[in-house]
C-alpha cells in the first residue's frame, strides 16, 4: 500500500533555521526539549493511516501545500476584514475577561484582562519565556509527556519544536474566576498559506476554579495549518469547565492536541463543538492521577460538504476511585466524514474505576460517512466500564409523526437533529453555557442544505 506521506523536511529545515531565535532559546532545558521533539518528529514523520490512531484521518489533502510560518504576522495583521470584531460570546453584565491570539500571536490590544482576581495570571507565552522562563520549566512539555509516548503524536512533537507564542494561564490556590475567561483564537488573516503552532498552558492550583470558553475562528480563503497544543494541569480539588468551539474557515487544517493531568478530587468538565475547518482533529488525552478525580469529555460534531472531523480521546484511569464519562454525538451531511475514537484505559490497581462512553451519529445524507472506535483497555478487575455506539439516520416514524402534525419535512428534520444533539449539550454541567452551544447548533441546522427529494441536486 503506497501511502502519500507529507515530507517533514520543510519543517525540520524551518526548525534548524529558526531555533536560535525562538523565544526562550537561551534556556538549556527548553532548547533540549525542542531538540528532542524535533528528533521525535523526524523519526515518526507525519501521521499516516498506518498509525493505528490515524487510521481514519488521512492528511493527503495537505500534500503539496507550502505553509509559511505565521511568526509574528498576527501582531500587525489588519482587522479590516473581521466584521463586528469579537463581540462577547456570552451576554454578561460584567465586561468579559478575554485573551486574544491572532495567527497564534498574543494581542494585548484585543484582550481585556483587567478584571482578573489576585492570584490569577493570564500572560503571553512568548513574553513570559523571555521574562521569567523558570516558572514554566516544570510544566511545559511535562504535562504532555506524562504517561509516555505511544509513538502516535508527531504533531505534538512538531508543536513543541516550533511554538513561538501562545498563552499561559495560572490560578493560585483557591483562586476562583467569577466569570468565564474567553480565549479568542483568530486565525492568521493573510492571503498566504500559513502554518502556526500555538501553545497554551493552563495550571490550576489546589482548589482553584475557572471556566474557559475557547473559540477558534478566522476569515479568508488562504490555507492554514493550525497545529495547537494545550497542556492543562489541575491540582487537588481544582475545577475547570472548558468549552471549545472549533469554527475555523473552510480552508483550514485544524489540529489540536490537549493533554490534561488531574490530581485528586479535581474535576475537568469539557465540551467540544467541532464544526469548522476542512480537516480537523481534536485530540484530548486525560490522565487521572489522583483518587477521586472526575472527568467529563462531551462534545458534538456537525459536518457538511467535504469536511472531515475527527474527535479522538483517551482517558487514562491511573489510580483507584476515579470516574469518567463521555458523551459525543454528531450529525453528518453531504459528503462529510466524521471520526470518533475514544479510549478508556484502566491501569493495574486502579480499582473501583468507573468509565462510561457513548458515541452516536446521525447520517443525514447518502454520501456521509462515520468511523467510530470506542475502545476499552482494562487491567484491573474491580471496575465498571461500558461503552456504546450507534449510527443511523433520523427515525422515520418520528419524522412522519411530526409531519402528520403539520410540520414541513425540513423543519421536522432539523427539530429531530436538534433534539438528538441537545442531549449531549445537557451533559455539560455548567448550565449557563448551554444556550451558547444550542444556538450554534441551531445556526448550523438553519443553514443546512434542503435535502427534500427533488431539491438535493443543484439544477445549474
Amino acid at each position, binding site marked *: 500500500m503506497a501511502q502519500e506521506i507529507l515530507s517533514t523536511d520543510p519543517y525540520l529545515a524551518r526548525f534548524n533555521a529558526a531555533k536560535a531565535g525562538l523565544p526562550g532559546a537561551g534556556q538549556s532545558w527548553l532548547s533540549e526539549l525542542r531538540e528532542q521533539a524535533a528528533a521525535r518528529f523526524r523519526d515518526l514523520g507525519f501521521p499516516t493511516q498506518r498509525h*493505528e490512531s490515524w487510521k481514519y484521518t488521512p492528511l493527503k489533502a495537505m500534500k503539496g501545500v507550502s505553509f509559511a510560518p505565521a511568526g509574528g504576522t498576527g501582531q500587525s495583521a489588519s482587522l479590516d476584514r473581521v466584521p463586528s470584531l469579537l463581540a462577547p460570546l456570552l451576554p454578561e453584565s460584567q465586561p468579559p475577561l478575554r485573551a486574544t491570539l491572532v495567527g497564534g500571536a498574543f494581542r494585548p490590544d484585543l484582550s481585556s484582562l483587567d478584571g482578573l482576581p489576585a492570584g490569577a495570571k493570564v500572560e503571553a507565552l512568548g513574553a513570559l519565556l523571555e521574562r521569567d522562563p523558570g516558572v514554566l520549566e516544570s510544566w511545559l512539555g511535562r504535562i504532555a509527556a506524562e504517561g509516555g509516548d505511544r509513538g502516535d503524536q508527531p504533531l505534538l512533537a512538531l508543536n513543541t519544536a516550533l511554538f513561538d507564542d501562545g498563552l499561559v494561564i495560572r490560578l493560585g490556590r483557591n483562586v476562583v474566576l467569577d466569570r468565564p475567561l474567553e480565549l479568542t483564537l483568530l486565525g492568521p488573516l493573510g492571503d498566504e498559506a500559513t502554518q502556526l503552532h500555538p501553545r497554551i498552558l493552563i495550571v490550576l492550583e489546589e482548589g482553584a476554579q475557572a471556566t474557559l470558553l475557547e473559540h477558534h475562528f478566522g476569515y479568508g480563503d488562504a490555507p492554514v495549518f493550525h497545529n495547537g497544543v494545550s497542556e492543562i494541569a489541575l491540582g487537588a480539588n481544582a475545577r475547570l469547565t472548558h468549552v471549545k468551539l472549533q469554527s475555523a474557515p473552510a480552508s483550514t487544517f485544524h489540529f489540536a492536541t490537549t493533554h490534561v493531568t488531574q490530581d485528586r478530587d479535581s474535576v475537568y468538565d469539557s465540551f467540544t463543538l467541532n464544526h469548522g475547518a476542512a480537516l480537523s482533529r481534536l485530540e484530548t488525552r486525560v490522565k487521572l492521577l489522583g483518587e477521586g478525580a472526575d472527568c467529563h469529555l462531551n462534545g458534538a460534531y456537525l459536518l457538511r460538504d467535504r469536511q472531515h472531523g475527527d474527535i479522538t480521546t483517551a482517558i487514562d484511569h491511573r489510580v483507584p476511585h476515579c470516574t469518567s464519562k463521555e458523551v459525543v454525538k454528531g450529525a453528518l451531511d453531504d459528503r462529510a466524514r466524521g471520526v470518533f475514537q475514544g479510549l478508556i484505559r484502566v491501569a*493495574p*490497581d486502579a*480499582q473501583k474505576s468507573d468509565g462510561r462512553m457513548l458515541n452516536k*451519529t446521525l*447520517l*443525514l*445524507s*447518502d*454520501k*456521509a*460517512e*462515520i*468511523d*467510530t*472506535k*470506542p*475502545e*476499552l*483497555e*482494562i*487491567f*484491573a*478487575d*474491580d*471496575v*465498571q*466500564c*461500558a*461503552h*456504546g*455506539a*450507534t*449510527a*443511523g*439516520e433520523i427515525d422515520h416514524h418520528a419524522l412522519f409523526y411530526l409531519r402528520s402534525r403539520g410540520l414541513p419535512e425540513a423543519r421536522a428534520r432539523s427539530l429531530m437533529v436538534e433534539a438528538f444533539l441537545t442531549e449531549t449539550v445537557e451533559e455539560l454541567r455548567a448550565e449557563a453555557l448551554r444556550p451558547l452551544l444550542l444556538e450554534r447548533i441551531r445556526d448550523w441546522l438553519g443553514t443546512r442544505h434542503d435535502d427534500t427529494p427533488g431539491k438535493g441536486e443543484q439544477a445549474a
Partner: protein
Amino acid sequence: MAASVETVEQVQSLGERYKYGWSTDLEMETAPKGLNEDIIRFISAKKDEPEWMLEWRLKAYAHWQTMPEPKWAKVEHPPIDYQDVYYYAAPKLAEKPKSLDEVDPKLLETYEKLGIPLKEQEMLAGVAVDAVFDSVSVATTFKKKLSEVGVIFCSISEAIQDHPELVRKYLGSVVPYADNKHACLNTAVFTDGSFVYIPPGVRCPMELSTYFRINAENTGQFERTLIIADKGSYVSYLEGCTAPQRDENQLHAAVVELIALDDAEIKYSTVQNWYPGDEDGKGGIYNFVTKRGLCKGTNSKISWTQVETGSAITWKYPSCVLQGDNSVGEFYSIAITNNLQQADTGTKMIHLGKNTSSRIISKGISAGRSAQTYRGLVRMGGKAEQARNYTQCDSLLIGETCAAHTVPYIESKNRSARIEHEATTSRISEDQLFYCRQRGIGQEEAVALVVNGFCREVLQQLPMEFAVEAQKLVGISLEGSVG
C-alpha cells in the same frame, strides 16, 4: 444439568487440568524440518496434486516471504522460527485405508479416548466425523449415508482429486492467498482438512464434524476447510481440537472458507481446546486462524459459534461478508483465558448487500494473569441499504491480575444502515457468589455456575450434543482461578 459439579469432580479426579494432554506413540512419516520450495513440492507430490495446486502454493510461498508479521493484535510472543517446524507429519500407512476396518487400531483408540469413537457401531449418532491427525485426515464416518443425499463430506485432499471443479472454483475465493501472513503460509503448506458440499435444496441429515488432533512434536498443523452450501441447502458443522501437553509452542495456522449461495444456511461451531500451556505459560498452541464466510447468495445465512478455551495464543476473527441481499451473519463467542493465555479474537461483519443484517454476541472471561481482547469490525458499505447490526460485547474479569480489552471498529457509509454497539466490562459479582454459597454451593462451583449463566446466550447456539461438553469446559478452564 449439574455440569459444574461434575466438572469439578472430573478435574479433581484427573489430578491435572488439561485432560487431553497425553500423546499417542505411532510410527510417523515426516518431511524434513523447515520450509522451502522443496518442502512445498514434497507436500504437493505426497498428495498427488494437480499442477494448478502446486502453482498456487508456490505463489503463496513467494508472497509469504515478503510479508511482515502482523503486529496489531494485543498478543506477545517471541518471534516464530518457521524453520524449526515440521510441515508434514503423518501416521505411516502401507496404503490408504479403504474402510475404517483398515485404520490403525492405535488411531481409533486415540479418538475413542478423546470421546470421538470412529467405529461404525459406536459412532456418535447423528454426527458424521472427519478425523484429522497431525497433517492428514485418517477417517471420515457416515460417508456413504451422506452420499445417498448427495452431500460430499471428505478430506480436502480427496476433494482435490475427486471434485477438482468445485475446489478450483471456490478454494481461495473467500480468503485470497495474500490475505494475511498466516493465511498465506497455510495456502503454501496446508496438508489436509475437510471439504463439504451440500447440493441444492438439501438439508444435511446430520451434524458434520471435524476433529483435529495435533500429536507429533514440533509439528505445525495447517488445515484447510472449505464448505459450500448450494442454493437452498442447510448444514451444521462442528470442529473440535486438542493437542498433547508439550513444553514447546506449536503453530496452528488454519484457514476456513464458507460459501453460502441463495437461500442457503451454514452454521459453523467450534469448541477449541488446544493445549493452553501450563500455569507458568510454558508450552501451548499458537492458534492463528483465518475463518471467513461469504454470504454470496440472496437470503443466505452464515452463523459462527465459538467456544475458545484452549491455546496459549488465539488470533482469530471468524467473519462474514454479506454480499447477497437480505443475507444474515451471526457471531456468537465465548472466550475464556486463564493463567498466561492470550486471546485476541472477534469478528468482521462486512455489509455489502441491501437489507443485510448481522448480530454479534461476545462473552469474554479473563482469569489468572491472562489477557484478552475483543476486536471487531462492522462495516456498512455504500450500497448496504437498510442494513442492520447489533453488537453486544461483555467482559468478565476474575482476579486482579487479568486484563480485558475491547476494540470495536464501526464504519458506516450508508445513512439507512443502523448500527448499535454495546460493551461492558466488570468483575464477577461478589453478591452472586455469596448468594450461591449461602445456598450451599461451593466457591468453584459457584464461579462455574455464574460464568455459565453469563455465557448462556452463546451456549444455547451450540448443537445439543456439544452444549453440555462446552458447559463443562467452561468450568474446567476456570479451575484454580479463584480463592
